[in-house]
């Protein structure tokens, strides 16, 4: 029995992919995360999937997870929908730009570092993944403090609009630029981008934490759909791989959600930071391996 599937010419061990989906889903169920920030770097660093395919495939499986999160948030009315709609304008352009950027990096060839030929896509994206993962770990370690007043970005008054659920006004073009940045990260790295959006909302705009956590889901869903289409047209989506991840993760997410009830939140946070740390080590090790 052949335990490998061919992904862009690379033999990938499919039981490992199913295990990755199960593990990420469990984590997603415990913490309410999408998991793209772990899936994409691990697909590349551990399974050898080309980064552009890992990003496209991760976005495709995110269509399923983000749709569920969007439907759930519609019920609990968490987040600021007006902010979401304003971000949409920028995020659609951003995800297209990010996808084109990753395509350009994949086609850019390699640079010689310490006598070794290292692809440009790894030189640029691996440090970005590490920065993203460190931000994720920090955001989970800190997750209770809230601001009581509008942040510095909310003081920009250019074409300001009311944000009724958070109780202040913010500049509509600035929000669209935030959406562009989020979309760009999604297209480039194959991540939902909530971990990048959260500090901008909480520290930049002064959103209360729960409203910040619920904001951006519509944007994540839209960017996942647009990003998947653009990546698929570039040949960067492996639907079979995406479905293996999605099937495993959507089932184990239910077990993770049950586990949340049984374990204290402090211990869960430590587990999360350990998993993110292990992912950072895997990406770092992959960088070192290329230099050896």
């Amino acid at each position, binding site marked *: 029995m052949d335990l490998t599937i061919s992904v862009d010419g690379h033999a990938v061990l499919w039981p490992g992919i199913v295990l990755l989906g199960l593990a990420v889903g469990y984590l997603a169920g415990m913490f309410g995360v999408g998991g793209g920030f772990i899936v994409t770097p691990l697909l590349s660093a551990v399974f050898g999937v080309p980064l552009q395919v890992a990003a496209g495939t991760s976005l495709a499986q995110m269509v399923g997870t983000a749709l569920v999160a969007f439907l*759930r948030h519609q019920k609990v009315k968490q987040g600021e929908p007006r902010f979401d709609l304003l971000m949409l304008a920028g995020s659609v352009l951003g995800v297209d730009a990010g996808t084109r950027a990753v395509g350009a990096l994949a086609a850019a060839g390699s640079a010689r570092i310490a006598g070794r030929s290292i692809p440009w896509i790894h030189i640029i994206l691996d440090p970005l993944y590490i920065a993203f993962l460190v931000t994720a770990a920090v955001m989970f370690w800190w997750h209770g403090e809230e601001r009581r007043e509008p942040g510095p970005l909310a003081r920009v008054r250019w074409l300001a609009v009311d944000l009724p659920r958070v109780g202040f006004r913010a500049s509509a073009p600035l929000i669209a630029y935030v959406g562009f940045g989020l979309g760009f990260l999604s297209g480039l790295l194959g991540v939902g*981008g909530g971990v990048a959006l959260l500090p901008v909302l909480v520290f930049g705009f002064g959103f209360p934490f729960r409203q910040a956590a619920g904001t951006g889901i519509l944007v994540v869903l839209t960017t996942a759909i647009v990003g998947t289409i653009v990546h698929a047209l570039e040949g960067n989506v492996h639907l079979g791989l995406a479905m293996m991840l999605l099937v495993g993760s959507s089932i184990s997410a239910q077990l993770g959600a049950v586990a949340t009830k049984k374990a204290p939140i402090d211990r869960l946070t430590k587990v999360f930071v350990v998993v993110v740390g292990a992912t950072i080590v895997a990406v770092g090790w992959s960088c070192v391996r290329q230099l050896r």
Partner: protein
Amino acid sequence: MSIILYAAACVVVPALWGLAMYKVFGRVQRQRKGPPPIDYMI
């Protein structure tokens, strides 16, 4: 043409699976006690 159909499938198939899971596990979610978990979607 086939690449366009493939791109559409890459969106529709995961979305349908997500929708199915939402329906199937919706009852389990509703039975959970306490406040809904914070959803970071990262």
